[in-house]
């Protein structure tokens, strides 16, 4: 029986638990999110923006690999409540070790250790190679843990792992030539044999004492001052013998082990630094004039002033924040940017509505109203930025020039809840 079945006993337990907790058993839909909805909105909208994230496949067998790669941008308007990314670690969010990590890179540098001094306002590429270990349907997110700010979760996608957990093995050969056939069980038997030996010695010692008349007789004996009966001369010998046995076993065992494993290294704890990706000179400046969130309309409205400093006309293609991507439906190159395998629930259907979608000529400055309308603002609990200490919103705007080149710009600023603007939304 595989690991899960031995403890899960799925068939028997569903009836038992339901019977016990008097619950109706309705058919649940799989939960899409994993705890990131509870992360504060200012962390999800103004810290790490993940983009170009791809998953190599959605269906793998146990021991096959799946690769998550992409880029992330560190927001300039980093919230005060979260510490700056001085120390971060690239990881993944999955329930326990259902998938194992094979390799992880930041800008091509191996990321087994934590990375130090990530620069705000800059971009980094990441790559995460995972391997299926326990069969099931798992939600695989890239996560950047920032020290002091906690886990900042990227977009998640479902990966189905088929096969049986028993086939999973992690063979490794050490630099001293020892071949380990499976890292999962390496050394466990040795630990258990030795600790069983220690435990036997302890049980013998305890039984040696509790097999005699114990509580009331010894209590009365002490009352009558006959302590000498309670700890006899043989007990002294047994204690001295025990002392010798313990010390000899430990010293001999330790000496044998230090000779057997001459070449050992301590735990590796260094962290690494990496330069950010090259930054293109700013092509477009975006200034947020006014941001309102229409609560009943579930619509975020940004009034921005865009100045096109590049040589070719620009059109707004996408607005992305908190792993949600609002695409300008009428711009084909923007639509093409969404990989068909990208999780559907992260690309709101209504997309991004722009007050004036005509290209912005080079050098022109134009006021635009961007509207991102979707229930996701509620379901992702992003609206609590209205009731939070730091009610500012942030996001990434993607522009496409004549040649289909993509340019990015940050937009962030204070946001105000609005309840009356419903009619305006239909009109414009």
């Amino acid at each position, binding site marked *: 029986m595989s690991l899960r079945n031995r403890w899960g006993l799925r068939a028997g337990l569903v009836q038992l638990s339901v019977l016990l907790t008097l619950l109706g058993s309705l058919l649940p839909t799989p939960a899409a999110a994993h705890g990131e909805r509870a992360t504060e909105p200012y962390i999800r909208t103004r810290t790490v923006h993940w983009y170009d994230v791809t998953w190599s496949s959605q269906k793998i067998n146990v021991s096959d690999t799946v690769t998550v790669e992409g880029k992330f941008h560190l927001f300039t308007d980093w919230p005060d409540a979260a510490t700056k990314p001085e120390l971060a670690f690239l990881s993944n969010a999955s329930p326990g070790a259902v998938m194992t990590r094979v390799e992880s890179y930041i800008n091509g540098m191996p990321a087994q250790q934590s990375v130090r001094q990530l620069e705000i306002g800059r971009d980094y590429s990441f790559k995460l190679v995972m391997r299926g270990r326990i069969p099931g349907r798992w939600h695989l997110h890239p996560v950047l843990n920032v020290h002091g700010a906690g886990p900042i979760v990227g977009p998640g996608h479902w990966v189905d792992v088929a096969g049986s957990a028993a086939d999973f093995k992690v063979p490794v050969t050490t630099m001293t030539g020892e071949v380990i056939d499976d890292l*999962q069980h390496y050394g466990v038997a040795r630990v258990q044999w030795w600790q069983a030996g220690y435990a036997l010695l*302890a049980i013998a010692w305890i039984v040696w004492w509790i097999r005699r008349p114990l509580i009331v007789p010894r209590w009365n004996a002490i009352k009558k001052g006959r302590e000498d009966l309670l700890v006899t001369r043989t007990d002294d010998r047994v204690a001295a013998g025990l002392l010798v046995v313990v010390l000899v076993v430990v010293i001999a065992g330790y000496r044998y082990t230090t000779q057997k494993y001459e070449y050992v290294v301590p735990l590796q704890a260094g962290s690494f630094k990496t330069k950010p990706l090259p930054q293109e000179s700013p092509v477009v400046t975006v200034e947020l004039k006014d941001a309102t969130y229409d609560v009943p309309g579930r619509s975020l409205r940004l009034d921005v002033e865009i100045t096109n400093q590049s040589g070719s006309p620009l059109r707004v293609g996408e607005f992305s924040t908190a792993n949600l991507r609002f695409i300008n439906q009428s711009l084909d190159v923007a639509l093409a940017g969404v990989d068909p395998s990208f999780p559907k629930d992260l690309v709101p259907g209504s997309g991004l509505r722009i007050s004036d979608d005509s290209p912005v000529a080079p050098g022109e400055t134009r006021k635009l109203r961007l509207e991102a309308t979707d229930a996701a603002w509620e379901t992702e609990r992003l609206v609590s930025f209205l009731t939070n200490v730091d009610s500012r919103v942030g996001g990434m705007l993607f522009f496409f020039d004549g040649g289909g080149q993509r340019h990015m710009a940050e937009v962030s600023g204070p946001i105000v809840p609005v309840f009356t603007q419903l009619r305006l939304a239909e009109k414009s």
Partner: protein
Amino acid sequence: MNLNDLAILKVSGLSPQAIKWSRTLDVLIVIVAAFLIWAVSHISFLLLGGDWDFFIDWKDRQYWILIIPITTITMAAAFQAIFWNLFRLPVGATASLLLLLVGTWIVRYHSWQGLAFFPISLVVPGTCLMGALVLDAVLVLSRSWLVTGAFGAVLYGLLFYPSNWIYMAGYFQPVQNMGDMTSVADLIGYTFPRAGTPEYIRIIERGTLRTFGDTPTWVSAFFSAFACIFLYYLFWGLGVLACNSRFFPVGDRFKSIYGGKSGAADSEPALKPGVPS
């Protein structure tokens, strides 16, 4: 029943019937004591030094060797004090560490592997059991908590590293991962991801200035032994303190409600604390 047992029973002045009852009581008290020692030792160690014992990639040369003996000798000394003072039974330390080890292995299988699918190689626990045996043995031989603190507690702190290195050394062989050299323990920690435990959160040795061979481990072991002495005395005192049997003085209303004061003005004082020094 050897001669010594018969002598004890004779001195205790119990009738044959009472002897049978007292044997029943022995069994019950052993069960209650076992449950309680197990529970208190586990919850105390869990939240004072648990992290280093959970994961193989936390077992470093600086904190693991220092913190585990310090956090486990507390309950070992307290329970040792209780059972030695009341019944001259030098089993408190061994029982505390043995039950802690049993409890830890149960959770490693039921929860770490059973719930979160972690391999046991990631979560093998260490143990101070050999130190506890020495603690009890020295208490029997010296019959004095002063000597036990001086000799036993030092050996307790010193024995942790070698007695666990015997089966942990294999985890610190060098291995290559993504081109860098790392230890098998780090590789296990890296391969089996823990969402709530990023790498930088590990409180482990982040750099040693003077490494003469493997002496940093022994430096930590000696410091731990030194700290164990004071903790031993402190918690032996707490154990003695726990053996007080005072009663809160209460008014007559309390007694009448609880039916304690039915007419007879029983002015019999509360039980004399029968705690021999």
